[in-house]
């Protein structure tokens, strides 16, 4: 690859690497899996850099969201958390309750199917629209909405039937 393109790749990774790792960590909940996911996506980008460098970030993000291989790359690599490990909710004050709920939601989030988790990360971390999410995940907007709704319903069941009003995708 030409030196100018090499430099461009280096600059892209330096500029966007941490942001991509944040997405990957939200998807996997695991440091090593997140790094593996990002490195794999960047490797694919590097292999095609002369062709995709004009829109590299969209290309890499799409791979990160769609790459299912990471769960299988390492034996015993755990990227999902079982429902049984969701901590009991405390009966103390509201602050304690909030903290406990937040931890419970985080654990429950990691127990969702990959696609549902990806939808929630795109919607709530990246603040992407339904249409943008559908484009990245390669599905119809209606599917995104139904996946988000299913995920939220499942989270409600996992963290307890609290009196909160449920909403679907925005």
């Amino acid at each position, binding site marked *: 690859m030409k030196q100018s393109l090499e430099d461009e790749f280096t600059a892209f990774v330096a500029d966007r690497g941490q942001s991509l*790792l944040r997405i990957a960590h939200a998807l996997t909940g695991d440091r090593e899996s997140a790094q593996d996911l990002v490195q794999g996506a960047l490797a694919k980008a590097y*292999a095609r850099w002369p062709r995709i460098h004009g829109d590299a970030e969209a290309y890499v993000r*799409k791979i990160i969201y769609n790459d299912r291989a990471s769960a299988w790359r390492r034996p015993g690599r755990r990227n999902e958390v079982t429902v049984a490990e969701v901590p009991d909710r405390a009966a103390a004050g509201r602050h304690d309750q909030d903290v406990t709920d937040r931890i419970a939601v985080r654990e429950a989030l990691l127990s969702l199917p990959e696609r549902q988790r990806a939808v929630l990360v795109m919607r709530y971390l990246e603040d992407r629209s339904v249409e943008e999410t559908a484009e990245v995940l390669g599905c119809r907007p209606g599917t995104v909405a139904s996946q988000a709704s299913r995920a939220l319903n499942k989270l409600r069941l996992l963290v307890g039937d609290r009196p909160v009003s449920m*909403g679907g995708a925005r």
Partner: protein
Amino acid sequence: MTRLEDMVGAAVRDLADSAPNAHDLASVARVRGRRIRRRRQALLGAAAVVLAGAVITPYAVLDGWNGGPRPQPVASVPPSTAPVVPVPSTVATAPAIRKDWWAAPVRLPGDLVVTSVGRREVNGPNGVTAVAPKTVQEGNVALDRSTGRYRAFSGGYQGFDGAPAGRYVMTDDGITAQIGILDSVTGQTRQLGHGSGRGVEWSADGKTLLLSLLRGGVRLIDAKTGAAVDREMPDAIALCPSYCNFTWLPGGEEIAIAQRDPRVERSEALPDTVRDIRVFSVATGKPLRTLPVPGVPAGSAAWSPDGRYVALLPDAAEEDGIRIAEVATGRIVATLPLVEQVRFIADDQILTVRGLDVGVYDLTGKLRQSSRLPQDFLGRGISLGRA
């Protein structure tokens, strides 16, 4: 936005905020990216490089054979249109695991034992992977069958995969990406100049390592002597999907590799669509037959002992589950939840491992039994073998 949505937003931001620091991403991506390019060139017949690091294996090993008559090659299995038997005759029991698990073989349903437990992830400054302590709780641990106890070995190995039988452990130092074979009884390691620990499958007897070669073919390595012999199969990987590695078939005389559907346009952002599985002779490397199975076998242990069924990795056809396919017809008889390990422990029973949860499913996909691994195993690679 509802309170639950607020909490979901906070949770995903929490997760994102606890991401590791980016460290040397570009260098690693370059190495892996060049491997991808070399693989593409290899597929065009231009390269002939042993680079198992470019292929992916889900995990290790064991053919699921559990005593009795030696399983026959899949060719002898007749097609079946009958529904699968809903309830196995006798569900394998889950033995109790003692608190000091390292003092005796950890037994699992189906007369299996844990042969090794890999190191826990240990990060040093800037998220760089550090050497794990040489302890049973955190390090690389293997079953020493001469004493019946687990023993801790160097925490520097990134890959640590105990054979399903016998005394050997496949190691990967994580730096040179080359494998070694550790003798769990003597503690001696034979470092080999071959590929990385990915794309490597133990034979069911624990005597031979199977490496998938980038140029098409396999390398068979004798665990005891380190001697290697190659079987050239240049056209075997012409239609290789993303998971491009061979698995052993029951009986140990044949190996198989999935083939993608060439009619489906490839995208590196999406899983491949798999068309069928090709079977080759281990002795000669010659193609024997093609199985109409639409998926990638989830390792050598994913074949039922009688060769009638095989567990398939997620792909374009089913992204969120493990499909169980009838080998003779390709018919999907069940879909299991996504797990980290899947293996047949009898002709009609499938053991899965997900985190610390061990499950036994029947051929309809119904969970028949569940148990838990020791808490010390959390986040560590686990290899299984025969008791």
